């Protein structure tokens, strides 16, 4: 019985947060865009994976208005219109279909990179903040070292060393992404360390590792959640920069950033080729930032994210 009560309480709290989020029009707008983006990505991603497993890639574009790979030279470089919402590219492929087809890879990389950043950064930051002393000095020196490299440059070096492609981009991005989380988690650990219940846990003989595992991860995550939401957009933005430079998903697979790069040749006369994918990235990033801001207002974090 007690279990059920705690679960309903928890549930009620989450519903309360959701209602508060939806009450603000800008946050609601962002939330709707994000939900649309991620749910579309899940459906489309599953279809693509199943399609490639059973050897029928056309399952991947069964929901799309056009085949994203089939060239129609007679239709090339058409202005955005009712038949082609975002126009067509140089080979006559529908840009909107290609953007939709590329969505799952962006959704996946945003979740994996933010998750990886939280895992590594959380590990390093929590230990640094809780232990202090030499551990903290070393961990923070390591963090500063990775932060000293502009993220894009470090990712470029990593991909130049190991190779270009989606998986390499993912690994490179996790490597450049964890330091900001390490800083956040360290600050959180220092804040939580001074609370009474941590003293109580120490007195009752719990080991330091156990305290971190049981009593620090959850509260720290609560504070970092708004930042992580906002960060989903940053990851998509950053990945689009990598794929703009040709370091992401390799052709013929469409990718938002690389579509912009392909369209440069046809700029400015056929402006929609480059601008449309760029605008989609902008909208998703803005949506993530709005939701992150809204969450922070509700959960009561500080305005100190730099």
């Amino acid at each position: 019985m007690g279990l059920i009560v705690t679960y309903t309480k928890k549930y009620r709290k989450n519903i309360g947060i959701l209602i508060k989020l939806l009450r603000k029009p800008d946050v609601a707008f962002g939330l709707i865009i994000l939900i649309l983006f991620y749910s579309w990505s899940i459906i489309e991603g599953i279809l693509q994976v199943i399609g490639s497993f059973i050897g029928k890639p056309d399952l991947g574009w069964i929901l799309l208005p056009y085949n994203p790979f089939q060239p129609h030279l007679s239709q090339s470089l058409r202005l955005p219109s009712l038949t082609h919402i975002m126009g067509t590219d140089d080979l006559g492929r529908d840009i909107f279909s290609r953007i939709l087809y590329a969505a799952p890879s962006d959704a996946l990389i945003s979740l994996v990179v933010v998750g990886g950043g939280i895992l590594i950064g959380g590990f390093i930051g929590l230990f640094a903040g809780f232990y202090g002393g030499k551990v903290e000095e070393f961990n923070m020196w390591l963090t500063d070292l990775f932060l000293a490299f502009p993220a894009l440059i470090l990712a470029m070096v990593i991909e130049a060393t190991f190779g270009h492609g989606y998986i390499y981009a993912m690994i490179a991005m996790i490597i450049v992404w964890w330091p900001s989380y390490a800083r956040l988690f360290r600050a959180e650990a220092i804040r939580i360390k001074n609370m009474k219940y941590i003293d109580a846990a120490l007195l009752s003989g719990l080991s330091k590792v156990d305290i971190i595992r049981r009593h620090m991860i959850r509260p720290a995550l609560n504070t970092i959640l708004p930042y992580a939401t906002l960060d989903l957009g940053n990851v998509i933005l950053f990945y689009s920069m990598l794929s703009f430079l040709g370091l992401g998903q390799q052709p013929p697979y469409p990718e938002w950033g690389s579509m912009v790069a392909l369209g440069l040749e046809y700029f400015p006369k056929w402006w929609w080729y480059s601008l449309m994918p760029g605008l989609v990235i902008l909208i998703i990033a803005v949506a993530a930032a709005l939701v992150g801001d809204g969450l922070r207002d509700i959960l009561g974090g500080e305005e100190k994210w730099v």
Partner: protein
Amino acid sequence: MSIWTYIINRAIRAFFLILGIIVLTFLLSHVLAPNPAYVWAGPHAAPSVVQAIIGEYHLNQPLYVQLYYYLISSLTFNFGISPFFKQPVSELIATYLPRTLQLIFVAMILTGLIGIFSGAFAAEHKDEWGDYTVKALYLISWCMPPFLAALLLQLFIAYKWGFLPPNLMADPTLPSPKPITGFPIIDAIIESNWPYFISSLRHLILPAFALALISFGIITRITRSSMLLSLNADYIRSAIMRGVEKRRVIYTHALKNSMIPVITLLALVFSWMISGSVIIETIFSYQGLGWLLTTALYNYDYPTVIGCSIVIGIAVVLANFVADVLYAVIDPRIKLG
């Protein structure tokens, strides 16, 4: 602790960070790389070239020997010869880095102006339409992909209205000044090459503005929140009570003190701008360090990639050092340590 111990402390820290950066690139390029000789020589190199590379970079020797040679050559900026440009990498960097620095310098001035004044404006009109407009603008700035900012500026200002040239560093028909300082604009002034000076200034505005467009958001936000803090301070209230005009209080008294946190951001903005310049220089065909880096990347020119990134890392560490020192000098209240 006096300010000098603080500065020396920071300098030692910066030095170790620079060492760390070099060791990090060493780890990547010599230890973790699946086949270092092929990474350094490029994937399509002939066997004789690969043999020469192994000799040149001491790749057949123990790791600590490799690290020794790597550290020595990196600290003396001797990054080897670029296989694509057929020139020493250090010479390439010496030519291309000043161009990017002058771009970033102009962009940072623009960013500072836009960020500080929009932040002050938003704080003055807190919870009014002015505040919301500025908030929307900085959100967009924050989330704007660099290529989109560059393309929109190119499309409207250069192609549609024809105010400014869309790409390149200067009018290619003009004779370029001989490099004295390396900064084309300063060289043009020294040699009184006025047509080139005006042309390169006109070519600089759009990329600099694009860089400013993607990075002013953070400065706006910090200025706004620190303005709101200082607007509640006692000295502001007493200034208002003594009858100083409100606008004057906001834009002189409060703004001066709220600019202190912005100084720490300058290093961060510098680091962002270097990242952004890689993309923006590609789009504007502005031949700076970012352009060099991408060209080297496309042509498997690994020594240039490593050389550029070490130099960029050092530049960012130095920028952080300068920001820390400036902060301590300007604001004596901070805890030195």
